[in-house]
């Protein structure tokens, strides 16, 4: 009996150590900014995803996501428009709340999450992931797209007209279920393709695929796997139905949503202290904050190597729970899961 105690203690100690490290307990985040920053007024219930329409210099921001938190169902879901071409210098930059019209639109059950767009005949088509108050999922477009394969969608990326890849970051539908799913390392995440008519599972058994980005020029898809703290690069087939992994990078931080830059590099909003995020994202209307970080990944020609830099890091007091970063016109917009939207001016691109 006593003989068994020592190996059991060693295993327990090992597991505690691993958990301590995985939850980022020993980690310190030092503050630094790429330039002068300020919060965009009017947005305080989140800016979880930001999608840039590069041709127009405008970005759409989703606000008011409610994810497995039925007690926050009263939070109003909104979509904002940010114009990167607006004149800066006369006070804080502005974002406009977009009115949503439509007979079948239910404002009370609108809690938008990830969004993407595709331009057809000069018209910007937006696809937005929505969670209703009772956590039913759909993708909102001109109509509501539903599918049993949309298990727990987080973000999506358009790969063609009326075609998108959607990430399910797990299977559990309740908070407790999610905690168990994460602690047991159950790989319940999947990636689903909507081809215009129906959904197909493209990848399964993943560790929390969250953010997604599409590099049309090089035919590459980038997906962040939050449970593994990795960003994966895939080749996408011509018919969009197959993803083949090219490489996987351990970033040692939880990367949330991804955005593409003009030169093929990828920006992501990250949670460097996941122990703080676990508390703060459950306390969105309270005082807890969580550290924020923006990473910039530049890929080698074969996409097998990356150079990583960190344009922004904060201990949570300026921006809490960053989830996305978009760079355009010497400005960077950093969105957070359930708080504000930060705007920084960038005078010298060497800080990116």
């Amino acid at each position, binding site marked *: 009996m006593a003989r068994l105690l020592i190996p059991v203690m060693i295993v327990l100690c090992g597991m505690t150590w691993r958990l301590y490290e995985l939850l980022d307990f020993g*980690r*310190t985040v*030092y503050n630094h900014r790429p*330039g*002068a920053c300020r919060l965009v007024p009017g947005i305080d219930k989140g800016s979880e995803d930001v999608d840039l329409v590069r041709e127009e210099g405008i970005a759409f921001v989703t606000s008011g996501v409610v994810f497995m938190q039925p007690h926050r169902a009263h939070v109003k879901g909104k979509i904002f428009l940010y114009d990167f071409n607006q004149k800066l210098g006369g006070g804080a930059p502005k974002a406009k709340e977009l009115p949503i019209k439509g007979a079948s639109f239910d404002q009370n059950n609108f809690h938008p999450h990830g969004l993407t767009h595709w331009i057809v005949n000069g018209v910007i088509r937006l696809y937005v992931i929505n969670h209703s108050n009772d956590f039913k999922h759909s993708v909102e477009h001109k109509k509501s797209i539903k599918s049993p394969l949309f298990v727990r969608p987080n973000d999506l990326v358009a790969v063609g007209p009326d075609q998108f890849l959607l990430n399910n970051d797990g299977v559990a539908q309740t908070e407790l279920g999610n905690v168990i799913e994460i602690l047991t390392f159950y790989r319940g995440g999947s990636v689903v393709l909507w081809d215009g008519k129906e959904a197909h599972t493209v990848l399964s058994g993943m560790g929390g695929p969250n953010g997604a980005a599409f590099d049309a020029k090089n035919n590459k898809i980038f997906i962040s796997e939050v449970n593994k703290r990795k960003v994966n690069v895939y080749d996408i087939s011509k018919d969009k139905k197959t993803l083949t992994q090219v490489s996987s990078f351990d970033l040692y931080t939880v990367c949330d949503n991804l955005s593409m830059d003009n030169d093929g590099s990828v920006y992501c909003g990250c949670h460097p202290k996941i122990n703080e995020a676990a508390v703060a994202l459950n306390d969105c209307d309270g005082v807890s904050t969580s550290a924020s970080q923006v990473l910039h990944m530049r890929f080698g020609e074969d996409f097998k190597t990356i*150079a990583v*830099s*960190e*344009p922004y890091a904060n201990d949570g007091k300026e921006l809490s729970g960053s989830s996305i970063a978009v760079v355009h016109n010497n400005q960077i917009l950093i969105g957070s899961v359930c708080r504000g939207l930060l705007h920084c001016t960038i005078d010298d691109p060497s*800080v990116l």
Partner: protein
Amino acid sequence: MGPSNFTSFLFKLTSWLGIVWLSTTIVRFILLSDSNKRVYNHTPGPCRILQGIENGSAGIEYVPELRLAFISNGLGGSDGEIGRILTYEFPEPKAEQDRSVKIHEAIPLKIQKSDSFRQDKFSPLGLSSFTSKGRVSLYVVNTHPERKCVEAFTFVKEKSLLQHRKSICDHKFNSLTDIAVVGADRFFVTNLAYFNNGWMQMAELSMQMNMGSILLFNGKTVEYAEKYSPSPSGIFYDTPRERLIVSSMINEVIQLYSVKRDLSIDHKLDISLLSSPGGLYVEQKSGDIFASFHPVLNSLIFHWLGTNEERKASPSQVLRIRMQNDDVSWVVTEPYANDGATISASNAVAYVNDQLLIGSLFGKCLLCDVDYPTLA
């Protein structure tokens, strides 16, 4: 219970205590080694390497009266390669429009031949200076194992020459690292550990035994200012505020002492930073403390053990600590961090006219523009 039972009980007790001590030491060492830490790259603005420095820029001393930074060079040199001191002249503040065009070059200084100085036994590390009536005295820590001394030089600007005045040596100088001058021939020096170098020193530091010390040379004798100090690496004297700043490499704190008229020191507070500080610099006007760090200690160990041909990169980091008006709280920002690809093992720092000068233990010296001084 007879005598043999008691001895076996004592034996069991001491072995268990020994195992407990060993386990805690091992765990503390693993935590110290930063095996789980990663460093992400970022700069406060455009950066460039100073030309003329390849194998070390481990110590930097800035003299505002001459706009000149003195840089120690040669720690990374192979046996036989000499240590040198180089200078870098900062441009006049108004000339910043030309910053992008200027070639940034460090000029080596000649050291005048003298009987008291052995050029082949010179391995400079920390430096400090004293300026009076236009004369600059440079005091350099010599880490050569046969010359554990502080070398005092007079700087002759017109000839780019250093004249050796004297060596201050003492048997208490075990593992000299850095120096802070407080007056003419009056300075504080740090002993990183009790053992000089090699495996004994590494074991002593790994076990975190706090056997380093801070010493004072008062013009005549060398005395202990602090007999047991936790691995003091860098030291800097903040003249306007009469404060001595000491960085503790293993305990990962920066210590502040107030210095009295008789040069005795009084410990005021510790700034806990969770990263290993090396070089220090205080900006005169604001009192902001700039420090260079080795954020991942296990990388530093591998970097240190390498040879000049092959050295594993070790991350670098610079933090800026701004003390608040109450003098007991502070704000920290991180102007610079690098995973080692640009500059490895940053060991010295200076901040002049919105430019950050960063020296590395065995490699090149980096000069960065700080685009937003109030933010970085």
